[in-house]
């Protein structure tokens, strides 16, 4: 009898029992790895949104806040359009404590030729902008010329291609890095291009409820508060000074996202905890039942000269092999569910979602497999301890 090969032989000789134990540990690993990747992606998404927003206060038309369209635009890339008079920018700049104010104009395309859904077009003022420009500069160092656009990573148009919007050709000059937010599905251009597109949209019969000329309309003003000024007080001053507009603190907007994220993380953590508790109890019962079923087998091994320590090691090796294979299977299954469906998960959660980098994912996978290995070993250790206390002679005489 080859003692070293015995654990593997024991496992292969009873495929049903081995498969059941492996599936149980696989389920454990699946819940931990899958849950951790989802929670980690949500956290990365929030960090990315915080970094991308870059403004202290956002001034938008009152109707935008009532429709919650601005928040949806930021988080999910829901195409939306709302406008206020461009004089709002001047009013914003008049308020004490405003260091920088950058206007943006939004337009929802009818149907970009890349796809059958609306694409959000965002017009920026390259001279005043401090929010999108630094991000664009990572991919494109030149200033945006007329009819040139920069696309988010989820807009399927390659650099050098023409993107047709409202029957006008725009030239794609760069693609932006992934943020996990609504910015990934947007198209960026300068204000002149935006005004041309707004007029083209009007000609196509798209009404923007614009009361004055298109050149005098903006959708939002991003504000950076000067050092030494209280953001809350500046926000209140903006609310009082700019008519038909609402000033919202970026932090307040993010607090809502952060709260939702905390809620999702809490639920996922609770679920993982419940799965682990249940799985540990089931594993303990499974190993106890297995030991009971194999009492005669172990008694014979003892009578053949195997020490108690050797039997305990045999049990531990079997459990470790089972847990290792089950853990790897669980991680593979979770990866097959979580990674291909990233966009679907992001859309359903309605929260910024950015998959962690490969090194973090690999670390998470390794930790998960180690954890399942540890749990399997602990559950079998208790069974091995019980086994070491029974007398082989009595076991065989009892005929158990």
């Amino acid at each position: 009898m080859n003692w070293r090969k015995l654990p593997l032989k024991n496992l292969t000789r009873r495929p049903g029992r081995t498969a059941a134990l492996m599936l149980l540990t696989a389920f454990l690993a699946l819940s931990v790895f899958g849950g951790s990747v989802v929670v980690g992606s949500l956290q990365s998404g929030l960090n990315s949104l915080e970094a991308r927003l870059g403004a202290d206060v956002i001034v938008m038309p009152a109707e935008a806040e009532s429709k919650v369209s601005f928040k949806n635009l930021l988080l999910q890339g829901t195409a939306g359009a709302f406008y206020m008079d461009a004089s709002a920018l001047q009013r914003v700049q008049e308020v004490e404590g405003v260091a920088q104010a950058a206007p943006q104009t939004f337009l929802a395309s009818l149907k970009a030729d890349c796809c059958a859904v609306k694409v959000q077009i965002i017009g920026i003022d390259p001279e005043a902008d401090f929010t999108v420009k630094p991000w664009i500069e990572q991919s494109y160092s030149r200033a945006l010329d007329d009819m040139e656009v920069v696309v988010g990573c989820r807009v399927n148009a390659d650099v050098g291609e023409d993107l047709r919007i409202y029957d006008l050709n725009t030239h794609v000059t760069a693609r932006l890095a992934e943020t996990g937010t609504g910015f990934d599905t947007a198209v960026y251009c300068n204000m002149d291009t935006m005004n041309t597109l707004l007029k083209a949209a009007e000609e196509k019969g798209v009404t923007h409820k614009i009361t004055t000329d298109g050149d005098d309309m903006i959708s939002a003003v991003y504000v950076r508060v000067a050092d030494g000024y209280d953001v809350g007080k500046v926000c209140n001053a903006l609310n009082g000074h700019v008519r038909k507009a609402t000033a919202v603190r970026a932090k307040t907007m993010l607090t809502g996202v952060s709260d939702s994220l905390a809620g999702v993380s809490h639920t996922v953590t609770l679920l993982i905890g419940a799965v682990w508790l249940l799985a540990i109890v089931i594993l303990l019962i499974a190993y106890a039942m297995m030991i009971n079923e194999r009492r005669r087998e172990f008694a014979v091994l003892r009578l053949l000269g195997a020490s108690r320590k050797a039997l305990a090691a045999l049990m531990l090796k079997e459990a470790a092999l089972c847990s290792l294979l089950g853990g790897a299977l669980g991680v593979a299954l979770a990866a097959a569910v979580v990674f291909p469906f990233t966009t679907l998960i992001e859309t359903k959660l309605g929260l910024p979602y950015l998959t962690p980098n490969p090194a973090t994912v690999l670390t998470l996978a390794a930790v998960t497999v180690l954890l399942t290995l540890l749990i399997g070993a602990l559950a079998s250790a208790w069974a091995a301890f019980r086994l070491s206390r029974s007398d082989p002679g009595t076991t065989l005489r009892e005929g158990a």
Partner: protein
Amino acid sequence: MKENAIMNKKIIPAMVLVVLGLVIAIGSQTFLGPCVHEDGSFGACHWAGRALLGVSLLLTAEALLSAILERARFGLCLASALTSALGFLMPGGLIDICKMDTMRCRMVMQPAMRVLFGLALIVSVAGLLKNKGKRGAA
């Protein structure tokens, strides 16, 4: 008795493939299907969905025959593996689908089909390994 048990074990991959083939066939036309356009028009992904239906039914037929015809099992497992690879490459590879990441065909159909056909490929290879002794018997 023992021969029966061995026989049953050898057709397990074929039975798994039958289930997978049916799930893909039904899924590609329903809950895992392509985009539905409001104006009733069809995009490229619609035809990718139709092709997936055909490939999945072919996979189901191959798996059923593999379960029945013992002497041809190795060859049919090989055919299933190739059919699975074809299905894996079809949405977005051999047949275009919508370009925007947030479209249903890209969010649901393509990843689901790749996972299911990938699984079918693994099971087919397992079937090949289980039946390699039957090679040349047909």
